[in-house]
């Protein structure tokens, strides 16, 4: 029994996939719209920004870190990208600029947490406010629309009738998942999250690694901002309110732990997929958006409580 439970916990991704498939089957019985190409497509496209941010969050949580600023950074970087484009900057330059800005905010978080020893919750709450505020300052609160068509393509056209942003998401999730599992460099992240002092004394350069994890997370948030702007043909400075919490919830559903040392990129991405599906299902069932928030919270609490129970049995 305990061995089976342990196995199950080890293949959290598989459990999530099964839950997703089962809820898909149930939903297709409950709503005729659910299993239509249009609906599934919109679910997949809708989860792209969250899934891309979740990649960075999975790495951060595995390292024992934490980042509340990601959604605000996404909005800020999308805004900057659109701003640069509207000022006539070439598309690659605007994108690179946005990504660099994300990396810069991330390195700020990293320095605050690593060298000034500010609690990650407080540090990234601060940068959340700064980033969100700056996005509003730059746009004076307005959206920036009418972006160049070849930029907008990123979010609207692509092979197999799926926009490029979906393929970018799939590619990044796959790549990052393999990298976190198998590369020497990212293996160190698990050691750091498992026991930072032991990692340091084992010869791992934890300070540099810690800064890297925040830069990585910030850069991906920047990318999410760029892709969201392309999708909407608009940069919205208030985009992604509470998205950081959804992403953290998804990562935890996917096996991450706030105490560090655990979790995978695939798990976090599947967590995002599950939450996207849940929200879509509730919408199709005419549940109000307000109740959807409540439901997400309950699902998270239930999943994590169950997880804790299984682990305690295991120990």
């Amino acid at each position, binding site marked *: 029994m305990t061995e089976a439970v342990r196995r199950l916990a080890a293949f959290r991704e598989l459990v999530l996939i099964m839950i997703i498939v089962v809820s898909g089957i149930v939903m297709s019985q409950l709503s005729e719209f659910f299993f239509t190409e249009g609906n599934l497509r919109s679910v997949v496209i809708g989860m792209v920004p969250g899934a891309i941010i979740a990649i960075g969050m999975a790495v951060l949580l595995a390292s024992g870190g934490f980042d509340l600023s990601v959604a605000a950074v996404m909005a800020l970087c999308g805004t900057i990208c659109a701003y640069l484009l509207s000022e006539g900057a070439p598309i690659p330059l605007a994108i690179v600029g946005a990504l660099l800005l994300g990396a810069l905010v991330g390195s700020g978080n990293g320095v605050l947490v690593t060298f000034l020893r500010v609690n990650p919750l407080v540090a990234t709450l601060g940068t959340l406010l700064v980033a969100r505020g700056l996005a509003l300052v730059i746009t004076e609160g307005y959206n920036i629309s009418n972006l160049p068509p070849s930029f907008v393509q990123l979010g609207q056209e692509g092979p197999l009738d799926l926009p490029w942003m979906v393929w970018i998401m799939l590619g990044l999730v796959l790549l990052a998942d393999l990298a976190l599992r*198998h*590369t*020497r*460099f990212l*293996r*160190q992240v*698990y*050691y750091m999250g*498992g*026991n930072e*002092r*032991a*990692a*340091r*004394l*084992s*010869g*791992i*350069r934890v300070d540099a690694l810690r800064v890297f994890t925040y830069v990585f997370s910030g850069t991906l948030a920047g990318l999410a901002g760029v892709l969201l702007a392309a999708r909407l043909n608009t940069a919205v400075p208030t985009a992604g309110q509470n998205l950081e919490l959804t992403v953290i919830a998804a990562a935890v559903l996917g096996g991450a732990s706030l105490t560090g*040392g*655990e979790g995978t990129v695939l798990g976090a991405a599947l967590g995002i997929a599950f939450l996207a599906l849940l929200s879509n299902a509730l919408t199709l069932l005419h549940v109000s958006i307000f109740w959807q928030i409540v439901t997400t919270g309950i699902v998270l609490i239930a999943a994590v409580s169950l997880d804790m129970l299984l682990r305690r049995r295991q120990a």
Partner: protein
Amino acid sequence: MSKRPPELAVEGLTKVFPGTRALDDLSMSVEPGEVHAVLGENGAGKTTLLMILSGVYAPDSGRVLVRGEEVSFARAQDAQAAGIGTVFQEFSLVGRLTVAENVFASHLPTRWLGVLDRRRMAREARELLRTLGSELRPDRSVASLDVGERQLVEIAKALSLRASVLLLDEPTSALSAEEAATLFEVLRRLREQGIAIVFVSHRLAEVFEIADRITVLRDGRLVDTRRRDEITPDDAVRLMVGRELSVLYPGRTEETGPARLEVRGLRSGPVGPVDLVVHAGEIVGVAGLRGSGRSRLVRAIVGAERRDAGEILVDGSAVRIDRPWQAVGHGIAFVPAGRMEEALFPRMSLARNLVSTCLGLVTRLGIVRAAAERRLAERLVRRLGVRARDVEQLVQTLSGGNQQKAVLAKWLALEPRVLVVDEPTQGIDVGAKAEIHAILRELAEGGLAVLMISSELPELLGMCDRVLVMANGRVRGALRAEEATEEQVLALAAGTAGEEAA
């Protein structure tokens, strides 16, 4: 036997932790007005006994009796209510609060509606401190007190619920000689008041100064209880160790090679300047009381603590070590004192723990190869005789001794030139201890330079070729371990003998 039952007694006390019997069928008693010392090596069960008596652990079997009545404690508060006060080695005071607030922390006197009765608190705290012979002002903040004064506050706190039994865990470990003398005055005063005192220490000299009776524990069992005048310090050591030292400690080196690790003028905070040399094939011990700076010294050598001045040379060339990874790069392996806190990744498998220092050996093109990882881990496990189901077993489920072997094993694949170990056998049973000792000697014979800290003098004297004795951040003397006695080491450690040396 006596007309009235002992103030405190335990009968058949047993406590099992995964991998060790921390206490095994222990019976002993403490009379009112008696100082009863409990002696034993680390892992002998002293701390477990205190934890049970203070209500932190519940025994697996056996009884605790206070004045003849059986008691059982679900929580620490229950032990206090039964009249047992405890002062742990780690102080539990809140620096920003006052003396009085700390003394009454668990049961603050209140008036109507829960408003604090500060006047009564101050008055009672003052009375309590007077019974200890202290005129400490109850309104001073604890942060402004020195260690000896804090110790007094801890004792007052332990006695604040009218305790008739006082448990003291290594009460002098952080105290200077004068502070310890003051503490003993307090203990004598309490003894006259009829308090039963349990005094846990491994400082023999102190035990023989203050104790009325001495109980020796080994491997969780009672070895003997004797009146102080029926036992000599030598007897006590023999009873504590309990076997021929030659079994517990391997032989010493015949000859040593060139200097492997050299430290010149090292300073780190209050420590230093220190010079030392460890040769290839040599095991050098660092002795000293807690607070003597021995841990800080070795941690500064391996880059785990800030180094303010000084040079470190490995195989004759100066190296730069400001961070642990640099030390690792120069072939210096470090086994810190806290296995779980600083050396292992508790929720990871044995294999993952073992490759944490040497990922490079199982990596090709940046990818960690699972098969190579497993092979390396299995090789290390065999080499050091780590007993585990397989290398996938979670390291936190191993016994203490096997965990400690795992900590050593994780450095071996790197083939280090210098091995620095801090308390390598703390809290593990004697069998595992002997194995670790053999491993350390074998590594030294293979050409490593070993620098070793231990709180157990017998271990240092039994294992090492040379022992450096530290006090107040400086090396006060170097002794050839084979010829040195505990008394010599203690005299140097207490700062009462010797001069600067290296």
